[in-house]
């Protein structure tokens, strides 16, 4: 019912500008200050090292689980403000993470409840809001996106009613067991020169893992003409890649740069995951060169760390087993594994007591 009313309010917003969409109390915008703010207050300890988890709600849960977080809404508008706080659907559209209109619902937004959906904040005031995401037992596996919005509406009878909102993205993966691995590959590197003569490097990055990615990165050029090196150049990105999507990643370079050949190294990062690709590039006089397939891709240090940990755990397990066996042997344990192994292999009734 409330959603229907909201929809009516949205449609009627044009007819009733003074009422404001969502029935948000009208706010008279005052100059000065940074406006309405939203801040993520806590994150899971497990994601302590992930820079993305410090600004977005990123989690993997099993059906039936509950996620609890806190957000803080602040008013720095120079005047008291009425703020509506709600969750709404989002999508990844041509490389951008975009929250849909109004309070368009999806599964994730309907699972999300906020402790205080309406706030009246004095100037300079802040208020904590508890966010609870209750995943149903029959939830379909997959990743879903939503945004937690803090919203104000301009008052008055102006022709254009302005709704301003600021939000925290939610990337929630649902499924049994552990989190689906994040992975992406750099498929090709292309050297181009645009119409105005600026050399650019375009790479195609494909998301091959089970989670959405927010990409950033750098490009370095080495072994150029006369042994020149250039870079690192930041990668032009606000690129969010959904599962299975691929996107062009571009790096604009300086017009003065010699054509090459260069040994180009591209590092692309999302959270804790880094991929690198190397290729030999020569900038054409005009237009583009053919795509160059990276000659070398190596997985990030992170995977080596994980591999090393697994090996270490294995070694520790073996050592532990050897130690317990040797202790048992010293005590003359009649049922030690060594003693069992030394028995002649003849059919015998199973021993009544074997301590493993």
């Amino acid at each position, binding site marked *: 019912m409330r959603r229907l009313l909201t929809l009516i309010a949205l449609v009627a917003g044009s007819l009733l500008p003074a009422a404001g969409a969502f029935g948000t109390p009208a706010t008279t915008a005052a100059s000065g200050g940074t406006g309405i*703010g939203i801040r993520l207050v806590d994150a899971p300890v497990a994601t302590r090292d992930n820079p*993305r988890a410090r600004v977005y709600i990123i989690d993997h849960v099993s059906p039936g689980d509950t996620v609890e977080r806190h957000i803080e809404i602040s008013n720095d508008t120079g005047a008291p403000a009425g703020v509506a706080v709600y969750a709404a659907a989002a999508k990844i559209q041509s490389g951008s993470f975009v929250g849909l209109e109004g309070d368009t619902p999806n599964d994730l937004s309907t699972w999300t409840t906020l402790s205080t959906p309406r706030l009246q904040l004095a100037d300079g005031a802040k208020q904590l809001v508890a966010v609870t995401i209750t995943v149903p037992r029959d939830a379909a596996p997959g990743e879903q996106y939503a945004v937690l919005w803090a919203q104000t509406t301009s008052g008055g009878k102006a022709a254009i009613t302005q709704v301003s909102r600021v939000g925290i993205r939610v990337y929630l993966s649902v499924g049994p067991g552990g989190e689906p691995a994040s992975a992406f590959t750099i498929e090709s590197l292309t050297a181009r020169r645009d119409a105005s003569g600026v050399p650019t490097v375009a790479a195609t990055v494909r998301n091959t893992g089970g989670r959405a990615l927010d990409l950033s990165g750098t490009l370095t050029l080495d072994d150029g003409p006369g042994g020149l090196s250039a870079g690192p150049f930041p990668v032009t990105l606000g690129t969010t890649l959904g599962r299975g999507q691929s996107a062009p990643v571009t790096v604009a370079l300086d017009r003065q740069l010699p054509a090459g050949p260069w040994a180009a190294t591209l590092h692309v990062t999302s959270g804790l995951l880094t991929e690198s690709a190397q290729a030999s590039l020569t900038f054409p006089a005009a237009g583009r060169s053919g795509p160059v397939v990276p000659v070398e891709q190596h997985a990030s240090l992170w995977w080596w760390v994980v591999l090393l940990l697994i090996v270490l755990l294995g070694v520790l397990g073996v050592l532990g087993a050897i130690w317990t066996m040797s202790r048992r042997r010293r005590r003359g344990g009649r049922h030690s594994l060594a003693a069992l192994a030394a028995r002649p292999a003849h059919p015998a009734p199973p021993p009544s007591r074997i301590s493993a």
Partner: protein
Amino acid sequence: MKSLRIIANVAIVGAIVTLVPATAAMAAGSGDTTATFTLVGGSLDVTAAAGAALTDGAPGAASVAGSLGAVSVSDTRGSTAGWVLSAASTTFVDGAGSVSTGVSYDSGATTGSTGTVTPTSTGSTSITAVAPVAAGTLASGNNTASYTPTLTVELPSSALAGDYTGTVTTSVA
């Protein structure tokens, strides 16, 4: 001897538990419990814009436009996440019931930014469905950016004289 070791272990665990800051809260899910820690970053802010006016169109005009005033984004989260500014609009309707045929939004070039950020703009973009209109890319640490966007409302050829009203939503995430 063994009992002594157990007591020592219990003492060590107890010491660790008391050293864990009080901010670590246990959220009890139906499955496993998740420990959270408190973040110290700042917030993402957007200025609350006031209502804006449209210029009066001449009779038979194909469109009317209006400046939406300043939109400022302030990012004190201290991260490299950047932000995306998107916009959406309802249709514009006048008192006699004429309905706009399209609404486009042009954020224009940034009117100022601080910190390490490259503010971008998509230029004139149709926002009858939600669309990204600007972004803060290559961000590192705290940054701000301001725009002064323009709204263009396309009118049907049968448009009657009247005051058109509608709602524009500007979102930052």
